[in-house]
């Protein structure tokens, strides 16, 4: 491949840079909205270094500056220094646990004069580098156990250290690397199992006390069974590639489900859970028959998945309701944000929903929100920043922000895909996965559908370290992308 020696500027992906700038500006405006407090202010006051918007603007400048510098290091440097950077950052994180002051129970801040830094925000960059570098090694095969253990170690060790810093939320972000492993060839069953377990657990518990209107059917239980049906059909279709089998399952399952629901609601009231169990039984038998008749051996995995799912859900349910004491159960439910605890733990989410809901279609207008101005939503300029957008910009504005964010993530994935080597691709996917994870958890939490896990929304939440950390991740990737034709 020919080495092109055009200027770095012409090789940069300006689309990504543009989206980055757009997100950063929207984020800064949201912080203006969140920190504005009805005192008549001149617009220039937002830039004063004594207010949060001013500080954030300064951090944005610093980040841009650092970013530009990062563009001068070429891909090889990132690759070669990956493990040194990783080791040093890891060390810094460990040291932080011991030297940092206790801030609301968290030990993750280093104070340097007027600034405080959160080294964990740079750990993501270091881990990404290390993982990308490791997976580029000659002879790396993800399906070898020793390799996969090493991969896991690269991102699980920082995760444990950050848990040690009492920043469980930030630590969970490292789970995003599973998406990268999946893209690099790890069997999809791991991802599917992990995602479905989380879904069963959350859906099952979330709706464990609700019933379908007028029916004696537990809503959570019903939903979980529907999910299992859905997943098994999807697996048959996309993984086993047995389209015919999947189609028959789909038709039988959906028709019977709808018929049962209709009958139960309008004709005879009965618990439609049993119908769903019968359908699952039908699926299992049908799949097993196909193994015998048509030698569709992969169907066995689907059967195991169905059975495993049922066992998982029912044991979760059993543990929650029979093993755990009530107060322990409530603690878990509140921790997961499942119980509406308006006074204590659920207060944030409750107020956040009020703020967003009051925005309506077009919002109350920039700086005109009442809920966020009047500080009803705690953490409104950090973790709950999306509230301000929801309240002031309404459905239209917040949808726009979400869409821009998703375009940004998809753009990063596209960039990752066009890399000529594993290093660039893994790096790009790591980046996209991290942003995606932050996006999903943060917005989901603010909207009240995800547990309250305190992680920031990249480029929106107030916080210098996180903005700088995300910028470093992005700019280094922009340079790697610019060098995508170079074999490193």
């Amino acid at each position, binding site marked *: 491949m020919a080495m092109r020696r055009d200027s770095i500027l012409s090789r940069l992906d300006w689309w990504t840079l543009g989206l980055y700038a757009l997100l950063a500006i929207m984020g800064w405006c949201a912080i203006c909205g969140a920190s504005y407090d009805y005192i008549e202010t001149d617009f220039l006051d937002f830039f004063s270094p004594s207010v949060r918007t001013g500080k954030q603007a300064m951090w944005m400048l610093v980040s841009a500056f650092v970013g530009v510098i990062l563009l001068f290091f070429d891909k090889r440097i990132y690759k070669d220094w990956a493990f040194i950077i990783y080791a040093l950052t890891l060390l810094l994180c460990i040291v932080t646990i011991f030297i940092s002051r206790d801030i609301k129970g968290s030990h993750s801040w280093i104070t340097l004069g007027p600034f405080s830094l959160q080294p964990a925000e740079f750990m993501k960059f270091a881990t990404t580098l290390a993982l990308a570098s490791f997976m580029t090694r000659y002879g790396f095969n993800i399906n070898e156990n020793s390799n996969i253990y090493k991969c896991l170690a690269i991102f699980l060790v920082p995760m444990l250290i950050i848990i040690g810093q009492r920043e469980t939320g930030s630590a969970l972000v490292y789970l995003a690397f599973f998406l990268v492993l999946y893209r690099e060839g790890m069997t999809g069953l791991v991802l599917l199992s992990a995602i479905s377990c989380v879904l069963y657990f959350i859906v099952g518990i979330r709706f464990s006390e609700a019933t379908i209107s007028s029916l004696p059917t537990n809503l959570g239980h019903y939903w979980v069974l529907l999910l299992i049906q859905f997943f098994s059909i999807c697996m048959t279709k996309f993984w086993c590639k047995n389209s015919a089998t999947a189609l028959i399952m789909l038709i039988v399952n959906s028709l019977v489900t709808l018929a049962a629901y209709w009958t139960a609601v309008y004709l005879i009231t009965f618990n439609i859970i049993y119908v769903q169990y019968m359908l699952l039984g039908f699926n299992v038998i049908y799949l097993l028959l196909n193994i015998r008749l048509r030698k569709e051996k992969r169907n066995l995995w689907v059967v195991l998945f169905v059975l495993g799912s049922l066992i998982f859900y029912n044991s979760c349910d059993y543990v929650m309701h029979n093993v755990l004491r009530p107060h322990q159960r409530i603690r878990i439910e509140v921790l997961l944000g499942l119980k509406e605890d308006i006074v204590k733990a659920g207060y944030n989410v409750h107020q956040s929903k009020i703020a967003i*809901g009051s925005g*309506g279609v077009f919002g109350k207008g920039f700086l005109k929100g009442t809920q966020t101005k009047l500080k009803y939503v705690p953490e409104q300029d950090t973790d709950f920043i999306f509230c301000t957008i929801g309240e002031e910009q309404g459905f239209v504005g*917040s949808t726009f922000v979400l869409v821009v964010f998703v375009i940004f993530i998809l753009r990063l994935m596209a960039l990752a895909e066009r890399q000529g080597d594993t290093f660039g691709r893994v790096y790009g996917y790591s980046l996209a996965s991290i942003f995606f994870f932050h996006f999903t958890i943060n917005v989901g939490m603010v909207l009240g559908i995800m547990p309250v896990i305190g992680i920031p929304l990249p480029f929106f939440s107030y916080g210098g370290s996180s903005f700088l950390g995300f910028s470093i991740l992005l700019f280094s990737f922009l340079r790697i992308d610019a060098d995508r034709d170079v074999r490193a």
Partner: protein
Amino acid sequence: MTNRKFKLEKRKFVLAGFVLLVLSTYIVRLFNLQVLSDEYKSKADSNAFYKKTIYPARGLMYDRNGKLLVYNQPAYDITFVPRNVRNLDTLELCRTLNMTREEFDERMARIRNKRYNPGYSTYTEQVFMSRLSVEEFARFQEKMFMFAGFYVQKRSIRQYAYGAAGVLFGDVGEVSQKKIESDPYYTRGDYIGTQGLESSYEAALRGKKGVEMLLRDAYGRIQGNYRNGELDTAAVRGKDLKLGLDIELQQLGERLMKNKIGSIVAIEPSTGEILCMVSAPSYDPRLLVGRQRGENHKVLSQDKRKPLMNRAVMGTYPPGSTFKISQALTFLQEDIITPQTYFPCADGFRYNKFKLGCHAHSSPLPLVPAIATSCNSYFCWGLVRMFSSKKYEGGVPEAMDLWRDYMVSMGFGYRLGIDIPGEARGMIPNAKYYTRHYGNYWNAVTVISISIGQGEVTLTPLQIANFAATIANRGTYFPPHLVSEIENDTIASKYKIPQSTMVGREAYEEVIKGMREAVLGGTCRAANIPGIEVCGKTGTAENRGKDHSVFMGFAPMENPKIAVAVYVENGGFGAVYGVPIGALLMEKYINGTLSDESLKKAAEIENKRIYYGDEER
């Protein structure tokens, strides 16, 4: 290897699909929260907006001469929003408000108890202490910054310039839960007129509440006006009332009725305005102001003589001989008698074996002296003649019902519609009533006592006074009312429309002659005021105990200025209390003052005490 690579590359679609799935889930969720549901909007409003009520000043009341009677005085309520109370220094609060820790706890417990305080909520303002004086308020305000979540609500409470007419003004108190539910104007803690004029003119007096839209932050601190006060509305002051009442006359009336039970009602015949309305025993409305109100109210409401009851409109009594005038009018109009008709009185009315006594006077006699001497027999004969008249084809029942119609046309038997609540109807029987009691075996003699204002007939003192006004007007009356003018408004039109009785003017001239004669040489001689042509009629209403003393009159005879009714329970003959009290009021009102001699007489009556057997010994 290439194949595998290609297959892995397809995983990007799975990942991208996953991203898009999350995106669409979130957009649906946003749509639900922001577009479909209104619930969060109202929750946000109740979160952020503190609608501060601006209470308007309640309308004032003046008497007919423009003297201020009822006005407002500032008082302060201390309120708190339980949710907003943070780090309360209870001891400091107690010290500031001069209460003990126990009192504080008791008060709080009472506020939290849903039985006493059904509107309790940690989100809304609760009244902690009401009716603080300016001094108490000043002490609290100085330290208010220390008590987060506590607020002060400026209120105005009623104050009275004179210690009279309390029962007419009525009362202002906190609005009841029932009223809040039925009338959206009121919210918890609002004041509302509960009795008397305060109640019946509530809509005019209350004015209009204003609202200030304040922004309240999550800590309950006020952050200023919403949109610079664009949405605020100013409070509109209540409308002032001008009463027909003459407060001096009212005070005199209350003085004269001291240590007695009964009523005085005086009406201006040309308008129907009430000049004074006394219900004895009366009370000083100033006792029911401020913090001592509760204690005093309890004493008054437990008093056996019921000072809080307005006997002038609520009490129904036999009218006694004052009622004879209505009989004379009816008989004249129905041509049962002429002024020249003589009836015998042989020491009373005798009919077969029936006898109804009378007092000594010449016999037989025509109408005018019969009125002047209040001859029972004359009116009994009149009724007998009417009820046995061949005129009425339906016989006694028809005569009875016709009689009833006459009485009703004179304002008896139904409410006159005065502008204070609680008015009683009194009682005028009809044929059906007697048929129910006696079957078909009753005649004039059976019901004879109605002709002299006894028996089944009862009237309120107001109806008697209104009757006097009707006579003074020679056959018409304006429904009596207390309020003569409402600021920027008009009083109810029914008070402006004269009501006619079924009796013609000529008949009235005849009975007036009789009433004048009664003053000049009959039962009402004590009412003969030099220089004023007084017409009057006494009544001595029989009672299980001592007779009630009644007087009804008006003055002057031509162009009457005042019609008055006096009813003194167990006062004996009409001439003993009724006549002198009525005369003093007429003199006072027409002359503006009392002569020296009258002053002495007034003092004498004031000091007379009637014993009712319930006195504390």
